[in-house]
């Protein structure tokens, strides 16, 4: 059997038409799977953390909405200055940065996905709690639940055999600068290293191994001892590996000399030098724009940061294209929340809720996901409502980028979360032999009133699981789960309230997604 036979139709394929509403998509063809990528183990994720709460509404501008200009009289981007990139979708002009390549051009070239309305239920407006929620991947409204490790930390610490007693030859994750983020922490220890300057890291890292065995973990002292010991071992071992990659690697384009852009430059050079790191974490601060975020000439802290974001990603992308590693890298932005739709009295914005997320790279299904924000319908605190659960892109990363399974996602996030479909799915020959088949599901009738039937034909026997999710991606209920023999399968659906849903049919672990609309 040919591998291609088993290519997925993916979550995005089925869901895309439903969720994109009136926004026509460029570079988005649900069934164009020509660019699928093999699930190799050299795939890289770059996470860009924008601390402070990025003002998504002044990044992707609702310039066709008169309400926007009413609620932001002094800091709105005038329509004639906003860049129209798609029907009803405008970019802040700072994203068209004067750089070798930038986010605006990446969007035009099909290398950028704009996820409108990313957020979560019962949003926390605290920087710290919300950052913890984003990095841990746990949306817990219980403030007493301690969030202590990260979704990527948990995933990779379980994927590496024998970790942390056995360290892989290259660091799993590299954070540029600072103290290691919660994102890269796991119950088994840190999965990554933090470094600022590879040369210094090398000079100082040599011979740092304490040459001692771990302690028993049954005391506080023993645990902390082991934590420090692991960092010391990693410093010693990885200082040479990183230096070698740094020396071998190169940059083939010109980066500007600002902090974030230089971080992206270093990442490009380490990848170019062959470092087998899976995750890079880079950091930008300053998004907490309570005061003077933008003046009448569209200058100010927020435009500056957007310009740097666009320059950093764009320059990196150009470097990656020239050097030929562009297909192996995708990036995503995370920021703890957006801003309040209404501006405050200081030409700034206070803490808000839903915002905009960027996912970029050759491996993304470019386009705009979700509607422009609804400025007539805020939540009880006067903030934007979310359209997508923030973990949906995480599920994409785990399943469609790193080749994990829905079970991996559920294990890591302790919740069933559907990929948004923003990344192209990796498939493998193994899937075929495991009977992981994607099926062609019909919903009859659609839209459904009191009841409908899901029907598909499957050629292999196996375990079938049918689930219903809300349109934002949160799990609602299991409709059916059983072992079946090959043939035509019919599953009745009834008793569902009016609304838009996502229905999943999973056969031996391969998931097919269909929209379900209920009108009662």
């Amino acid at each position, binding site marked *: 059997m040919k591998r291609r036979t088993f290519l997925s139709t993916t979550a995005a394929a089925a869901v895309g038409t439903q969720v994109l509403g009136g926004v026509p998509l460029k570079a988005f063809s649900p069934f164009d799977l020509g660019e699928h990528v093999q699930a190799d183990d050299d795939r890289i994720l770059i996470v860009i953390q924008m601390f402070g709460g990025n003002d998504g509404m002044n990044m992707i501008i609702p310039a066709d909405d008169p309400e926007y200009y009413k609620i932001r009289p002094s800091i709105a981007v005038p329509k004639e200055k906003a860049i129209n990139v798609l029907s009803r979708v405008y970019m802040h002009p700072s994203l068209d940065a004067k750089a070798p390549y930038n986010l605006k051009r990446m969007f035009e070239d099909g290398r950028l996905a704009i996820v409108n309305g990313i957020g979560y239920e019962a949003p926390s407006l605290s920087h710290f709690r919300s950052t913890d929620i984003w990095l841990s991947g746990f949306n817990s409204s219980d403030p007493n639940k301690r969030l202590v490790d990260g979704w990527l930390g*948990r995933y990779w610490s379980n994927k590496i055999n024998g970790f942390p007693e056995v360290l892989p030859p290259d660091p799993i994750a590299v954070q540029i600068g600072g*103290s290691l983020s919660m994102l890269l922490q796991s119950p088994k220890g*840190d999965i990554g290293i933090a470094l600022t300057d590879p040369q210094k890291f090398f000079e100082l890292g040599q011979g*740092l191994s304490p040459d001692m065995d771990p302690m028993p973990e049954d005391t*506080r002292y023993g645990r902390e001892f082991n934590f420090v010991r692991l960092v010391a071992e990693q410093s010693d071992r*990885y200082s040479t590996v990183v230096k070698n990659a740094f020396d071998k690697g190169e940059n083939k384009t010109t980066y500007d000399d600002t902090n974030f852009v230089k971080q992206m430059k270093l990442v490009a050079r380490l990848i170019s030098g062959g470092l087998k790191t899976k995750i890079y974490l880079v950091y930008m601060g300053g998004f907490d724009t309570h005061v003077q975020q933008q003046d009448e000439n569209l200058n100010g802290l927020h435009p500056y940061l957007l310009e740097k974001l666009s320059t950093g990603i764009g320059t990196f992308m150009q470097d990656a294209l020239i050097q030929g590693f562009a297909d192996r890298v995708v990036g995503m932005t995370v920021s703890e929340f957006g801003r309040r739709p209404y501006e*405050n*009295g200081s030409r700034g914005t206070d803490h808000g809720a839903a915002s905009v997320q960027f996912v970029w790279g050759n491996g993304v299904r470019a386009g705009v996901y979700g509607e422009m924000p609804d400025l007539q319908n805020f939540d009880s605190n006067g903030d934007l409502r979310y359209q997508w659960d923030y973990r949906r892109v995480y599920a994409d990363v785990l399943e469609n980028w790193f080749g994990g399974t829905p079970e991996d996602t559920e294990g890591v996030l302790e919740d069933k979360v559907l990929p948004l479909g923003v990344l192209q799915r990796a498939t493998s020959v193994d899937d075929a032999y495991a009977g992981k088949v994607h099926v062609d599901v019909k919903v009859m009738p659609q839209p459904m009133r009191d009841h409908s039937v899901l029907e598909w034909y499957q050629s292999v026997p196996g375990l079938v699981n049918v689930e219903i999710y809300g349109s934002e991606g949160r799990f609602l209920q299991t409709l059916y789960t059983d072992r079946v023999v090959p043939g035509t399968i019919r599953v009745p659906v009834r008793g569902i309230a009016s609304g838009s849903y996502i229905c999943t049919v999973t056969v031996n672990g391969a998931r097919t997604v269909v929209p379900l609309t209920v009108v009662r």
Partner: protein
Amino acid sequence: MNRRNLFTSLVRASQRGGGALDAAPMVQAGLEPYTTPLTLEDVFHLYRRLGFSVSMPVATTHVGKQAADVVEELLGEDDPGDPTPDMVFAKWRDPATQLMVDYTENPQGADLQTRLAIEGWWKGNHRSFSNWWLATMYRDARAVERLTLFWMSHWCTEFSFDETYMVPQMHYRHYRMMRKNRLGNFPSMALDVTVDNAMVFYLGGTYNEVGKPNENYGRELLELFTTGIGWYTEGDVKEAARVLTGWKASRFNDQPAPKGIYNTWFDANKHDTGAKEFLGVTIPARTVDNNTEFQVLNEEVFELIKIIFRVRPDAAARFIARKAYLYFVYSSKGDVDESFVNDLAAEFRAANFDIKPMLKKLFTSQHFFDPALRGAQIKTPVEYVVGLQRQFGVEELDPQIWVLDMDQIMLDPPNVAGWPGHHTWISTNTYPRRREFARKLIDAMTDARANAFIREFADYEDVAKFVLAVTRFLLPVDVSQARLDFYKSALLEGQPDYTWAEKLEVPSAAARAMRELLKAIAKAPDFQLC
């Protein structure tokens, strides 16, 4: 005992995030006073947590005393007074003229060269301030600076943030205010901070005006400084912001400063005089006549703070007690002993939120001295840098650069929540710097200093006892015999025991051996723990 066990079972289930390790074994000891006469190890432990470690000669003087007496001595009654006059950062020495000047020019709107000059000046002053403070910590025989640092890590301000800087003169006044309040009444401290010039500037209070509220400080007052999340609504945040309208920071000579530069003032026209409803309590509207600084300060701002402590006394007491626990006992957020924190919070509340009695209870409790909690803290960069100088008796002249390299910029935490602490203090970025700093200090010990250091230990002539004593001085928990043997062989450079007596007779040989031993110990993971 039953109460503690019951409580434990209740909290354990909800405490930790998914997949984390099981909680650490329970410490049975609680707030009961620790009355055992202090051993040398107890003294080390107390000073590692409440001071910045301790030299051997000072530690020896406390052996056999009661914890209550030593803690009282460290906390102190009296006002330590302001720092010595030449250290007053109200004025700065102009490097060109050597004159003391107030540099109050506003760089905004100035030409680029002037702006860079002013900002460069501030940066220089910030470095001097940092080094001065670290040197003051090094010399502080009590816990004055340690507690000031604790409170400045709680009520955070930053030297550099957004696109601007905290003028160091303002920052110094802020520091002095914290120092004065370090043992006093918490709500009074809260009032002082709320209208402090540096804070009014830092969290946007100066932009918070009637009709144009800025929620920044109102939110953090609740979330980070008093009750923590979960005890107020978003509406309370908005109302707090309204209460706090009208306070203005004074930063530059081209801005109004009715009370003198660097002093907060009140602009009655910018205050929201309407009634406010905060945590279910109404703060009545006021008229133009009683919209004065004095009345608004007492009837609204202080009232706002008093409402927090009246309506949410348990939440606030627990929040502060937990902060102290994390800072002084064990920093792992998933392993806070909630039962102990509750008891400590009850004491705090009973003492009307006076800080000193609460801290005294903490540091004289059996819980604090329990062996299960020793060696569990990761030394912060400041503790590490100041502590090693004290332990080795060697002073570093530019300590702020080392602290900075270890990712703690003095007076400049990463954000308003302060340094996140615990595991964030050690990474592959900072661990090599820590090792480098230890190596540098050890190499900086002169032969004379190294020989004096050796003789600070009572049984220094007995090599086995000496090595044991040095490990106990530098490491928080007794180490295995195998490690002791390894350290002894590092000291003796692999030679037999009797050579120690010979080395002692040759100062350069003894000093070299001593440095080898210290370097071997500094390599151990638990050298980072206290």
